[in-house]
């Protein structure tokens, strides 16, 4: 602060940010009326603030609708996926999107077993993020345990979604657990590979090959949010 400046830069910032107490604010108003220099300094501070606000006033959010290329779609059918994309539209809200997904994809094979009379269904979504084989194995073992520990009359619906480094679990050329995954799939466990993670890898020039019957149509976040909205138990491994 210069000797002739009664107000520090911090005080001027606090003024333009509405952080000054009323007494100090009044003092600054009064002083600015007498001092063109102070008035100019205040205007400069406000100008910087206004420019920042202006520069980020319109930051278009990313397209939250289906992100995986249609060529990769297959498990639940191109028609459903394309229909979703059209129906969702570019401006559809985040949770409106989730709601539509849950309605239309409700016809997925696993769900068909879910609500038979006299049965009780527990639903679990296991989320694998880590590329550590021990974590992957833990997820698969946990899914196996959930299936085996179900009581008579109790049905357990299980999905496993992998993203980030955890995607290695579902990459056919990388995973150490292809057989275990196939066994779980035979027991109606559904595997999802995060479309966003696949997209990122492909952008880096990595060819992504998934184990058979893996669904690459959703981002991990989309799947987690949808399933949690539907009351599934979510577990991050």
């Amino acid at each position, binding site marked *: 602060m210069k000797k002739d400046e009664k107000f520090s830069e911090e005080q001027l910032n606090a003024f333009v940010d509405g952080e000054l107490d009323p007494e100090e604010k009044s003092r600054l108003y009064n002083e600015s009326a007498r001092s063109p220099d102070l008035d100019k300094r205040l205007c400069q501070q406000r*100008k910087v603030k206004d*420019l920042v*606000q202006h520069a980020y006033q319109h930051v278009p*959010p990313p397209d939250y609708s289906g992100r995986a290329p249609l060529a990769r779609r297959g498990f639940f059918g191109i028609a459903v996926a394309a229909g979703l994309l059209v129906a969702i539209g570019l401006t559809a809200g985040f949770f409106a999107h989730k709601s539509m997904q849950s309605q239309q994809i409700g016809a997925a094979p696993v769900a068909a077993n879910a609500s038979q009379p006299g049965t009780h269904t527990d639903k679990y979504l296991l989320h694998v993020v880590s590329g550590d084989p021990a974590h992957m194995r833990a997820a698969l073992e946990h899914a196996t345990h959930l299936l085996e520990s179900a009581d008579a009359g109790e049905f357990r619906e299980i999905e496993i979604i992998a993203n980030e480094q955890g995607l290695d679990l579902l990459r056919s050329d990388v995973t150490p657990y292809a057989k275990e995954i196939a066994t779980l799939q035979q027991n109606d466990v559904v595997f999802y590979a995060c479309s966003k993670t696949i997209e990122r890898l492909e952008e880096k020039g990595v060819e992504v090959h998934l184990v058979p019957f893996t669904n690459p149509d959703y981002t*991990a976040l989309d799947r987690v949010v949808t399933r949690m909205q539907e009351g599934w*138990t979510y577990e*991050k491994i």
Partner: protein
Amino acid sequence: MVGSMIPGINQRRAFRKLLSNSRDRLYRMAYAWTHNPHLADDLVQQTLCKALSNRKQLRDPGAAEAWLFRILSNCLKDHYRAKHEVLSAEELVIVDSRTPQHETEEQQLVRKVRQAISKLPLPQCQVITLVDLEGFTYATVADVLEIPVGTVMSRLCRGRRSLREFLTDIRPQPELVRPAKLMEVK
């Protein structure tokens, strides 16, 4: 252990609404911090995932927004820590793919300001954007970034001083900079 993470219908609805309402704002902030649309999108996804899995940690619903932005900030820290990288200003996608020749004056201005922001050290950029874009108080910013209020003020001061220097040739436009109303307010 398997355990239900569903606290109650009303709480769930409120939490969903919070995430829904915050997503675009989180993205704008992540973009302002990184100027990289893909990275910003990833950070927001990670933030929402973490918020979902840790929502029981949110004790005070009134502090929910600060909590979300704190998670975002931590995701960014984790990202840079993991990648050991800091993007240079030249690598950043500041506005879009249009060439300067095709930019309107408005777009040029936006690009220039964003470039200036991207040149700031990240801690200064974070403080400025949290205050200016989200309108957070200094105390809230201190809470989000887990730093003392005094540090918020000093970073804000240094950051705005640098911006003033970067943007020195930008003249006030009527729609951008309100004329000084200090006399009137008095």
